[in-house]
């Protein structure tokens, strides 16, 4: 089974529009949405949810007020400044600041600190008209998005192997931090979707640095390329100095916005220029994917 991960560094360059179109072109595929913070792929692929599972990860400290003497040991030990002494004389935990390290509970002389498991969200196994899909939802403001991404990938891989899928197509999160690093693990090839802006190029450099750091092959496509043709040239030049192939350019096309509003992958609009470019990019990417070890 071969795994393609779509990343961008910068948000909003068109990862999900392109992944959604690939989903219709790729045969025998497991679809995966690793943007668990703000997942959007389901808006294009309309999955029918078959299973919903809880995602419980980590703990949050909780003070038992009756037993707390207000000695302040926990306040002193907490490296995240998440505990303070309330006016009533007992300690108080700020659940948003607590990282669940359990140090306070371990050292509390009164045994007055409990550790509550965090219910951070859900993961789903679903069916779309293009193939099975694993996706997830992190509850607003929760931590552990990286762990949820790892879980999503693990579940997707297990199911894909069981179902005998040939491909895993993964829509990644923006950025280069914890959820991105979690989604890189196991990928055979990364497609970076960028845009011809200074910000797009800046962020592309960092995400290619990340791919090199984890020794995963990468290729690039430039979305809305003619919005700034000089920048597109500059991006291609940069990629060639890095020996990173540019597999295509997608023109700015209002049909893409229309397809989002209709909730279907843009590739369904056969006559549109963006669709044709995306189809060409898919053939280049699938060829590369088949060559990857």
């Amino acid at each position, binding site marked *: 089974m071969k795994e393609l991960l779509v990343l961008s560094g910068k948000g909003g360059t068109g990862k999900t529009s392109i992944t959604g179109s690939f989903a219709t072109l790729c045969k025998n595929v497991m679809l995966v949405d690793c943007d668990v913070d703000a997942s959007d792929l389901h808006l294009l692929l309309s999955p029918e949810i078959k299973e919903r599972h809880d995602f419980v990860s980590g703990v949050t400290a909780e003070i038992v007020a009756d037993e707390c003497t207000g000695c302040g040991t926990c306040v002193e030990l907490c490296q995240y400044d998440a505990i303070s002494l309330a006016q009533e004389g007992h300690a108080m935990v700020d659940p948003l600041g607590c990282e669940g390290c359990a140090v306070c509970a371990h050292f509390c002389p009164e045994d007055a600190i409990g550790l509550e498991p965090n219910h951070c969200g859900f993961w789903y196994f679903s069916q779309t008209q293009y193939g099975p899909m694993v996706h997830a939802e992190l509850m607003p403001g929760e931590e552990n998005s990286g762990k949820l991404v790892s879980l999503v990938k693990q579940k997707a891989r297990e199911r894909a192997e069981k179902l005998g899928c040939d491909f895993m197509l993964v829509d990644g999160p923006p*950025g280069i931090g914890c959820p991105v690093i979690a989604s890189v693990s196991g990928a055979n090839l990364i497609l970076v979707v960028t845009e011809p802006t200074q910000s797009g190029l800046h962020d592309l450099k960092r995400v290619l640095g990340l791919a090199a750091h984890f020794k995963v092959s990468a290729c690039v496509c430039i979305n809305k390329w003619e919005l700034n043709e000089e920048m597109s040239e500059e991006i291609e030049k940069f990629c060639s100095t890095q020996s990173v192939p540019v597999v295509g350019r997608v023109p700015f096309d209002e049909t893409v916005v229309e397809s989002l509003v209709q909730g279907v992958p843009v590739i369904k609009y056969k006559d549109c220029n963006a669709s044709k470019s995306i189809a060409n990019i898919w053939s280049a990417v699938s060829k590369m994917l088949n060559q990857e070890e």
Partner: protein
Amino acid sequence: MKIAIASGKGGTGKTTISVSLALASSKPVTFVDCDVEEPNAHIFLKPEISGSERFYLTVPEVDEEKCNYCGKCRDICQFNAITVFGHTIMAFPDMCHSCGGCFLVCEEKALKEAKREIGKVEWGMSGPIKVFQAALRVGEAMASPLIKVVKKKAADSDLVIFDAPPGTSCPVINTVRDADYVLLVTEPTPFGLHDLKLAAAVMKELKLPYGVILNKAGIGFDKVNEWCEDNNIPLHMEIPFDRNLASAYSRGIPILEAMDGLKEQFSDLLKELEK
């Protein structure tokens, strides 16, 4: 006053709005780029960097000669950063959250304090604007500690602007939590609306006052406007989709320079928020 600019969905225009607000202010401004994974505000503000500092987390390093393999460090670590089996102990500094627990429980003093670089904070002036920014080390997973550092480092001003990363999880929380007001930037598409709802849920959870700015207005649909109206959420401004604005953005030019009247709109918005 502290204003955070956040979004849920990426690429809706957080940095564009943050930079515009800073440039439109008549009062002293501190600008803090909290998107440490992909910091972009410097492209538009071009600050003259006058100082920088690398930041590190304290992580354990094992002194095998002193270790008696009791396993207490492994047991307290909630992040699987230390493992002990038989007469083998291994530390995984990349997994460490720097809680300090392992150092405290080790009676043999077999753990030494080592460092893991998380990234670099820089500061400097962009005209009258004090700019603070940070870049996460490529390969480093944890953005939140660096966000806390750059915010702590930032000078106070009459107006402090936090340019947030996209999403709804811990890096966003750490950016917005001490703000007086949050502006959520979105675009008129189903993706924009879906992620706006998620971001709004976070602000509600944090009990932070917030309003919406609609960017690229005119493309897509009008359901963002309807949703704001139905939920009594202030829609402060609509910025039209315009090729000149897109082109200025692509070249690293603030949009205030590309469209007449925008600067006044942003300074009016600041006055409105200050009330």
